[in-house]
């Protein structure tokens, strides 16, 4: 963690970018796939639930219709089979009721025969209705008019909810009506049996919105139900209608409605949406839980991976930088090693002189004639000479040290001409012994260049060393020049050596490429120069002609602030 805290802003940015990339790349597909699957699943599931409800309501609707029509058919059968006179006998009527109750249980409560004026002629059943008057009853009038009727539920004379199934026979004054009372409870069972989930209930309402069966336990706004009724009535092609409505408390319910009894009644099935889709809700919750859990996992992993990657990149970069410095350092030492021969000669000469002068003084002192003025003068001269030669040594070592300093890589403004002169001074002696003329052509108004001094020294020294080595055998002329070329500073090193064959020319910047015997060249010099100059945003150009010589041009951009 320490590493990440010390991270350079550049790497923090890298880590952030990696984090976001990993997050987007792994999250977006998951999100898209999950969303698609979820929406598809939800649609299919809802459709399935609705289809199921519709199917159920349709089945019950048919069942109820069938029940009502069967009861009507029963009554019609009685009326047509036996006629008014037979049915007017109460004992016969009682027997018929007993038959019906035997066949259908408690469904038939009672039977009654009513004449055209609405007076009951005979009655079979548990109530004492005797000579009841039905002329004003809606169902009676309807039965007379339409020959058959199934009434809405009402309380009637007996004060209990029930409804009437009645058929009319005969014409005019001879018309009579056979009616049967259907037990509310028995009918209610047909609808009350529909129960799904915790909140699914079914009930029947008539055109006026009155319940024909037991209503739902929770209150229900009649107009909503009626709304559904209207929709069904308006669009009869849709036998079953599905819609959803929130109630006063905002709880959304699904309504499935279908028309019954020649479109006079409406079968309503109602279930709270949350209840109907509770399995979907559960699946949603579970998916959401896993989605969030997975998402958190992705976030954590992305964070961990990106941090780890960034810290690895940081470490790799750091190691690369250390390696680069080490390689530069090594090649610099190698370069100095190549110089060492010349330098050793330069240092050994003054040292030899000093040793001999010291020896000479010893020689003189052994003579015990020191008091003589000419001997004293001789000692003086020898000492002066030791002093002079010592100074000469110091200058040489100082020159060497300026190159041997560690490559700290610190960037400062460099005077290229000064660097060229430093290098020339260092190799002057070597050039002299190999009969090489050295010439410098330096642009006087060269802008300063920003870079590492030791690295720049190394580049120039390397090129100059190469040039000197190329001409070591036959001598020649070394020209080192500097010039400004637009936004570029050019450092040129030109020799009159044998040149580089075309086959080698394209490989000279390759690491470890060397034409020197094994053990004498690392083959790293030019590749390192190339690396250093490339890092500065520049390039190295070579122009070589076999037999005429080679020119290396180091082209580096002038820093914008100094141009």
């Amino acid at each position, binding site marked *: 963690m320490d590493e990440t805290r010390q991270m350079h802003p550049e790497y923090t940015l890298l880590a952030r970018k990696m984090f976001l990339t990993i997050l987007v790349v792994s999250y977006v597909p998951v999100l898209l796939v999950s969303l698609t699957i979820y929406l598809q699943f939800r649609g299919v599931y809802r459709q399935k639930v609705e289809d199921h409800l519709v199917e159920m309501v349709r089945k019950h609707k048919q069942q109820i219709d069938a029940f009502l029509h069967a009861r009507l058919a029963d009554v019609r059968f009685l009326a047509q089979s036996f006629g008014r006179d037979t049915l007017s006998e109460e004992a016969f009527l009682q027997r018929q009721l007993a038959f019906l109750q035997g066949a259908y249980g408690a469904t038939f409560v009672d039977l009654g025969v009513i004449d055209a004026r609405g007076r009951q002629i005979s009655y079979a059943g548990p109530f004492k209705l005797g000579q009841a008057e039905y002329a004003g009853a809606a169902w009676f009038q309807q039965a007379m008019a339409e020959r058959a009727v199934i009434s809405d539920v009402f309380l009637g004379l007996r004060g209990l909810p029930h409804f009437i199934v009645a058929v009319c026979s005969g014409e005019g004054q001879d018309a009579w009506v056979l009616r049967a009372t259907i037990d509310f409870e028995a009918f209610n069972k047909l609808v009350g049996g529909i129960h799904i989930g915790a909140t699914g209930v079914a009930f029947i309402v008539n055109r006026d919105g009155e319940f024909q069966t037991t209503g739902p336990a929770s209150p229900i706004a009649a107009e909503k139900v009626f709304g559904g009724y209207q929709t069904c009535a308006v669009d009869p092609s849709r036998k079953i209608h599905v819609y959803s409505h929130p109630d006063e408390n905002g709880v959304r319910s699904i309504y499935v409605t279908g028309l019954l009894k020649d479109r006079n009644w409406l079968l309503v099935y109602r279930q709270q949406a949350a209840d109907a889709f509770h399995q979907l809700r559960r699946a949603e919750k579970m998916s959401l839980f896993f989605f969030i859990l997975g998402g958190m996992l992705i976030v954590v992993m992305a964070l961990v991976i990106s941090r780890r990657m960034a810290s690895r990149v940081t470490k790799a970069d750091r190691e690369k930088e250390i390696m680069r410095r080490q390689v530069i350092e090594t090649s610099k030492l190698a370069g100095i090693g190549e110089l060492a021969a010349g330098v*050793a000669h330069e240092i050994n*000469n003054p*040292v*030899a*002189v000093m040793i001999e002068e010291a*020896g000479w003084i010893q*020689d003189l002192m052994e003579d015990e004639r020191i008091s003589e003025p000419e001997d004293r003068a001789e000692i003086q001269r020898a000492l002066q*000479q030791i002093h002079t030669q010592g100074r000469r040594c110091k200058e040489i070592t100082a020159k060497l040290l300026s190159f041997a300093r560690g490559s700290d890589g610190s960037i400062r403004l460099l005077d290229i001409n000064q660097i060229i002169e430093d290098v020339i001074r260092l190799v002057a002696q070597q050039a*002299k*012994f190999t009969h090489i003329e050295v010439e410098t052509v330096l642009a006087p108004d060269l802008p300063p260049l920003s870079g590492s001094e030791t690295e720049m020294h190394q580049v120039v020294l390397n090129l100059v060393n190469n040039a000197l080595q190329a001409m070591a055998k036959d001598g020649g002329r070394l020209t080192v020049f500097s010039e400004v070329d637009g936004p570029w500073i050019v450092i040129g090193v030109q020799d009159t050596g044998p040149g580089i064959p075309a086959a080698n020319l394209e490989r000279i910047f390759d690491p470890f490429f060397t034409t020197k015997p094994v053990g004498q060249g690392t083959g790293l010099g030019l590749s390192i120069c190339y690396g250093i100059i490339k890092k500065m945003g520049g390039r190295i150009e070579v122009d070589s002609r076999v037999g005429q010589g080679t020119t290396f041009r180091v082209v580096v951009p002038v820093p914008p602030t100094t141009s």
Partner: protein
Amino acid sequence: MSDTVSLPAAIRLLIIDDEIVFVEVLAKRLSRRGLCVEKAFSGQQGIQKLRHCDYDAVLLDLKMVDMDGLEVLKVIKIIDPDLPVILLSGHGASEAAQRGLAGGAFDFLAKPCDLDRLMEKIRTAVASRFRKEPNG
């Protein structure tokens, strides 16, 4: 070994080196030790002196501005193949010194050198010359 041959009373030595100060002081010290020292400050000058005088031994620097020591050695070997030449070099035991020994030099010494060892080498060199041509 040196007892069996008679050495000349004063060994005639030619020093060829372009490091003037060094030649001067070395000449003084060797003279004090009874040698007859002649100085040449360049390869050309040394060859000139060799053409005109006889020497018992030559002290030759390998690196000089005007001529390479090895080239001077070649010329000396042409003029007098038996003249012992002791090479001096600031390089230590360099490749040039090896080539010099292969090219007929008697011995090689690295600069800076111990004077007693130099004297010893010069004596051995001269002795070898006299053993080779005792009537020379």
